[in-house]
């Protein structure tokens, strides 16, 4: 007792600015929060949201057709232009492609994520993460050009089909109207394949994270109550993984809608929204139309998220 009595009840501050700040932050946690958030939040508000607002503003301007100059007056004329057949074509094409890519990514990602979340352990789990992440470490452009070579008429895919005497399959696929073409690298199928490849990790990771949070005994409980595997999937696993799928689809959907490089390198020469924006703000100099086109994906994503929420996609969160 007496030996302990010599040590003071409250140790003095070690002094110095750092120690005083530490004490201050401990007493006022809000101050710490503000200090930590000021810079990133400031960046977000001024640079990011600010530029988005400017973009929104620009989309309500229009261009004077005679002079080619932007008229800074509020008008809905530019939005009206979105509904001209050629622009509507671009929007519908992009929307269909994004939906197809998202669906394909979800279908491919689910079994992979399910395996990783429920069966892979230790070494296999590390291998899974490596396998999913590795493609993200190499340059996007390199990957896209690599696919151009793979899908080209003289490419390895054609060669494989020839060797397997399955050329007729490839020809049948390419002769499909609309999505076919002269070779895979100049068809919608090619664009679709590359989109799926490039965005797949963005679907796998959130789905895997969602499945990881599903306790194993819920699956056992479902079986115990009489549900076979299909019923357990439909009633337990899928609803609980849905927030992950929706999160992944936000990535795949919006990334596909905004991309302007893949459809330019691989695919038919018909435009997607990203390319249209690029063309309008560059060579055409039609900033208002470019801005209005940019607002389209934002609106679509908003509608999509609202619908997902209304349908209960986030109930399991």
């Amino acid at each position, binding site marked *: 007792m007496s030996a302990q009595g010599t040590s003071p009840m409250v140790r003095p501050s070690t002094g110095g600015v750092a120690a005083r700040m530490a004490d201050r932050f401990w007493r006022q946690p809000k101050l710490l929060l503000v200090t930590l958030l000021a810079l990133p939040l400031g960046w977000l508000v001024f640079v990011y949201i600010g530029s988005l607002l400017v973009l929104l503003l620009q989309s309500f301007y229009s261009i004077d057709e005679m002079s080619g100059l932007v008229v800074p007056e509020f008008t809905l004329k530019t939005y009206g232009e979105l509904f001209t057949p050629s622009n509507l074509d671009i929007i519908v094409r992009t929307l269909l492609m994004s939906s197809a890519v998202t669906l394909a990514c979800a279908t491919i990602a689910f079994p992979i994520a399910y395996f990783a979340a429920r069966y892979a352990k230790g070494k296999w789990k590390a291998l899974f993460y490596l396998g999913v992440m590795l493609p993200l470490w190499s340059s996007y452009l390199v990957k896209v050009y690599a696919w151009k070579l793979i899908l080209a008429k003289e490419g390895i895919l054609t060669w494989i089909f020839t060797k397997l005497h399955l050329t007729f399959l490839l020809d049948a696929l390419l002769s499909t109207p609309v999505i076919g073409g002269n070779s895979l690298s100049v068809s919608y199928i090619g664009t679709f394949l590359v989109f799926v490849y490039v965005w797949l990790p963005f679907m796998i990771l959130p789905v895997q994270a969602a499945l990881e949070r599903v306790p194993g005994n819920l699956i*056992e409980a479902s079986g115990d*109550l*009489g549900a076979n595997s299909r019923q357990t999937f439909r009633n337990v696993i899928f609803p609980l993984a849905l927030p992950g799928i929706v999160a992944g689809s936000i990535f795949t959907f919006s990334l596909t809608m905004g991309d302007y490089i893949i459809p330019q390198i691989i695919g038919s020469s018909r435009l997607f929204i990203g390319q249209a924006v690029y063309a309008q703000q560059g060579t055409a100099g039609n900033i208002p139309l470019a801005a209005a086109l940019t607002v389209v994906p934002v609106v679509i994503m908003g509608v999509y998220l609202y619908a997902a929420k209304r349908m209960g996609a986030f109930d*399991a969160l």
Partner: protein
Amino acid sequence: MTIAVKFDAVSRHFGTVRAVDCVDLEIAEGEFFAMLGPSGSGKTTCLRLIAGFEQPTSGSIEIFGERAEGVPPYRRSVNTVFQDYALFPHLTVLDNVAYGLMVKGVEKSARLKAAEDALAMVKLPGFGARKPSQLSGGQRQRVALARALVNKPRVLLLDEPLGALDLKLREQMQEELKTLQKSLGITFIFVTHDQGEALSMADRVAVFNDGKIVQAGSPAEVYGKPRTRFVADFVGSSNVLTPDLTAKVSGQRRWSSLRPEQVTLAASKASGVLEARMVAAHYLGSTTRVVTEAGGQRIAGVVQAGQAVPEAGSLVHLAFDKAALHFLEDQP
């Protein structure tokens, strides 16, 4: 008597670990059967074998006379109340309870009616619209019970059903479970590591250790006539006397057990049986549990309230009826 569950030399090995090792077991229809043992003793694996979550490595399991090996859980008329309840977080309480009927294709209004009735049975009427996250631990437990019972299983398995509840609630649930079991007449098999719970609730208890059943019998048998040192120690924390000490008291060199409540402190050396030294005293209210040391061994006894409790370190004389000494089967 119909046999509800029968194990014939059942083993379940995980690699080199023998979780369940050559277990023979018969549980009668309508019985309230407890599987008691420390963690890792194989009791939960036995339960999972009955539910169908595990398949035996060898041996055979029969449920109401039908072979259970290779039969998936969803085709067994057996339901489980899981340790942490395993309620579906995305479904309402009513949909949770109706789940079993839903997957069996029972029409919606009929299954919701049955689920309402089941909720009323576990004293949660009108809770159907809530989500499991809005319930307390005790309420979730009741929902899990209703969810299992609504399927009218022939065998109900309960895996440490009361483990997560506080003492008061646990005692209340023990009573309710017992009443429910008697009124429904369903075979209840429950797993617990709490010997008090097993003894007070079950018609019959099987004590597990190292993947084997060490002893099975009525609570009175298991408590009063333990077969081995393990059972004596695990069920009711009996004093286990070494062969040397037993010989000193009874003249026979065998392992024996002695219930603490049969040991008291004698006033004088003449009325005592064994000389011991006080180690510690634990005040329990109506009694005080005293721990003493005799012949290098701990022996616990009981002092009634109002009696003086000697200081630690002082010499005491232990008194007990020599006939209360119960000989064990372990080899000396």
